[in-house]
């Protein structure tokens, strides 16, 4: 007999249930939550808003999933977002920090996009280099960039909030394609490409193997150090893209607040999605995880609770999910049950 659900689908079941629970709560307690309107050929509504606002988190979650599966973690994503946003704003308005209001020549979109993304990738590769080749614990290697990175971002903007206008650049964060907000399309594209790269080639298997047992993977002939470094580079790229979206959406670069505390959201999403720190990963799970986090934030904020307080809820969610996944706890509970029966 065929099992009702494949093993992979089973892992998605609980995150999906959690997401449905949050949506159901809103169905009853938030007016007009499920209404989607079409204005000027664009989709609007709370659900679209959750997808749109969640785009940066979903992007960095994709990178974080792969890093987490190799047994690492990337704390620097928020800071890299700030750096890439600061860079693109600075490229659009190079004279702003000197106090000149005029724009000068319009910078081409290609440069505004490619330089921040390139720098983000390099920063990610630096993390990977520290982790894979120098052997620093991932948490500390990326912590360096997490704090020093904000310093770099502030250095780029000279501590100012650079505001700008740039028609084609703004499209990335706030434009619509086929009526759908462009960030959502970017997320779908990147998820699809990552899925192709990891699941339709052996790269995904390599990453899981490295996470499960680096030494055995090395003996099998996988280039462990190179793969790890590239994963961090990819995470840097995702963070850079997320930074560009945020920066282009609010038409400003804020080195202090761009991507602040977002590393927690990404880690939470990855854990909720069922990815193991060093082992199997699930891209779909992570995306659902990110949606849960975003839906929860939106729900809490619409209840009138200050957004900063959402941190407490997120912290509890992570610890609860981690407890559910803890094999040690499960074993202890089973032990207790057995004793109880006797």
């Amino acid at each position, binding site marked *: 007999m065929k099992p009702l659900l494949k093993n992979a689908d089973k892992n998605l079941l609980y995150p999906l249930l959690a997401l449905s629970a949050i949506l159901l709560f809103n169905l009853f307690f938030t007016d007009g939550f499920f209404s989607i309107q079409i204005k000027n050929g664009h989709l609007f509504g709370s659900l679209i808003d959750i997808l749109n606002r969640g785009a940066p988190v979903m992007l960095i979650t994709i990178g974080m999933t792969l890093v987490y599966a190799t047994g690492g*973690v990337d*704390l620097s994503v928020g800071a890299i977002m700030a750096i890439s946003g600061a860079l693109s704003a600075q490229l659009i308005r190079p004279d702003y920090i000197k106090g000149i209001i005029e724009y000068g020549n319009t910078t081409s979109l290609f440069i505004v996009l490619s330089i921040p993304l390139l720098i983000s990738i390099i920063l990610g590769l630096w993390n990977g280099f*520290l982790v894979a080749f*120098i*052997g*620093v*614990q991932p*948490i*500390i290697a990326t*912590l*360096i*960039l*997490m*704090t*020093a990175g*904000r*310093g*770099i971002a*502030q*250095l780029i903007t*000279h*501590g100012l909030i650079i505001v700008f206008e740039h028609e084609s650049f703004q499209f990335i964060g706030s434009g619509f394609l086929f009526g759908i907000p462009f960030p959502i399309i970017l997320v779908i594209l990147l998820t699809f490409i990552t899925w192709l790269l990891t699941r339709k080639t052996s790269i995904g298997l390599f990453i899981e193997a490295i996470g499960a047992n680096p030494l055995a993977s090395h003996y099998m002939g996988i280039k462990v150090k190179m793969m790890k470094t590239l994963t961090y580079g990819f995470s840097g790229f995702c963070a850079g893209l997320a930074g560009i979206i945020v920066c282009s959406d609010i038409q400003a670069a804020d080195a202090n607040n761009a991507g602040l*505390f977002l590393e*927690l959201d990404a*880690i939470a999403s990855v*854990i909720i999605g069922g990815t193991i*720190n060093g082992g199997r990963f699930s891209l779909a799970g992570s995306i659902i995880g990110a949606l849960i986090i975003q839906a929860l934030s939106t729900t809490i904020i619409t209840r009138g609770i*200050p957004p*900063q*307080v*959402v*941190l*407490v*809820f*997120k*912290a*509890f969610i*992570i*610890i609860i999910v*981690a*407890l559910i996944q*803890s094999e*040690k*706890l499960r074993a202890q509970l089973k032990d207790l049950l057995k004793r109880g029966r006797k």
Partner: protein
Amino acid sequence: MKFKLNQKNIPLLTTLLVFIIIYVAGAFMYRGFFSPRVFINLFIDNAFVGIIAVGMTFVIISGGIDLSVGSFVAFTGVLSANLLANTSLDPVVVIIICLLSGALFGFSMGSLIHFLELPPFLVTLVGMFLARGLSFVISLDSVPIRDETFLKLSSIAIHLNKGIKIPFIAIIFICTVILGVLLLRYTRFGRNVYAIGGNEKSALLMGLPVGKTKVLIYTLNSTLCALGGLVYSLYTLAGYPLAGTGLELDVIAAVVIGGTLLTGGMGFIEGTLIGILILGLIQTIITFQGNLSTWWTKIFIGVLISLFILLQRYLSTRNLNKNIQK
């Protein structure tokens, strides 16, 4: 007897050398840098970082990590400021509540790490955001401290001649360092910390109380964080929920620069003290320079910690090669 440079001393000596180089360079570059006042200020401005770094040294030697320190400083600050402003509790009781909440916080994290085998980075990361979130729950804005006892405490000082004085918070800092050294060097607990960091499995097989020690280490660290938070609120006379963002890196940097091995098993609190003073010197030089912004501090610390990690790595691989050649 010939003095031999052994593996253990190289990082510590490098640290001392770096300190002397930066200090002498500062003394030559800026007028008034080489004065007792500037030197004592190092102990005042970095008192709270230093106290936390003592706790972090224990954590890192045991092979763990604690990312929650910065947020917990903010939490203690906001908690104490609010209790003083909005309740009629005695200031002494407020201090005890803060220290106890630190102990409880650390105990919970240590228990999750040890008994449920959750990775330390995950647990303390959650702790980091939880403490930050809770500070926001208590207050979204900065709360000033106007309590008389606190004001008095912040003005107590030992007066040396020529108007130079060592204030209360610097004294607490120095006492914490001394107690930390004694605890790590001369007690069973201290030796257990080294043993766990060296090899947890061996420590367990030797019959050492690994679980108890690990939980105690995190409890001690968070209690010291609470103390650091109180010292910080004495220093600024306010509680601010965004205080201490990025403090984790400063503290970890001080410990690593001080010669403590990130992988655990080796390290000194004396080194951490010098590490703190180096960070303080960098800050002082940036202030003396005048035209450099404060964010340079973060970048310098990032560069410095990277360099020291590379040095540690170089030393440990060299040692490995030597052993193989033997």
